[in-house]
């Protein structure tokens, strides 16, 4: 059985169906992969400006909206200078 239990209390990256990337501490989850994210921040990518981090606080994200949950290596993450990164944002999922 696959589970998110090992990610609890770790810093994770969520990618949502609308293309948003949110980092935060995984505080909880349930069978539907609904996720509680503490201390969360949205990372807004853009092609001609650095990455902007927008604090969001405590979030409850519906499982249906989640494409990806990834553990963040805090060491590596800290060593990355977000302001220097230029990247197109992830486009939202399109159906049909």
């Amino acid at each position: 059985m696959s589970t998110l239990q090992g990610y609890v209390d770790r810093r994770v990256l969520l990618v949502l169906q609308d293309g948003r990337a949110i980092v935060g501490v995984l505080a909880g989850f349930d069978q539907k992969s609904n996720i509680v994210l503490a201390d969360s921040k949205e990372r807004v990518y853009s092609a001609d400006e650095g990455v902007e981090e927008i604090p969001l606080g405590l979030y409850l994200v519906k499982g249906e909206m989640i494409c990806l949950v990834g553990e963040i290596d805090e060491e590596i993450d800290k060593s990355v200078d977000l302001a220097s990164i230029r990247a197109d944002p992830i486009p939202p999922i399109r159906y049909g």
Partner: protein
Amino acid sequence: MLPLSLLTAAQNKPMLVELKNGETLNGHLVNCDNFMNITLREVYQTNPDGDRFWKLKECYIRGSTIKYLRVPDTLLDVVKEEQNRARDMNRSARGGHMGGGELRVVVLQEVVVVDVVDLCEEEEGAAEALNTFSYCSSVCFLYTLSIAV
């Protein structure tokens, strides 16, 4: 922690709900259920572009249309606290007897360096002491000498 326990604890608290179509609703939570259907009161609704607003006295949102909810940061601690309390209650209920007990805590670091005997009047106190010790030492060996009569 279960997402739904957080939501339940958010009753009467302010929250922001974003729907899958991008609309947002700001209001106080009146009630919720296991499908995450919710009712809000004193709601400010915005359209997906965020340039039009509506005020609603009360509204019902079907859980399946929700993208995410944003709740007050302080709720996390409230829910954690509640869960700890429930766990402790459970423990002492299963323990059964409520008499005084003796808890012996031996802390090992390579060799035995400390030997602490903590006398507790209440079983609950013993559990608390046990928690404290297991927190402050990474390598420790705990056993209960006698939990009383």
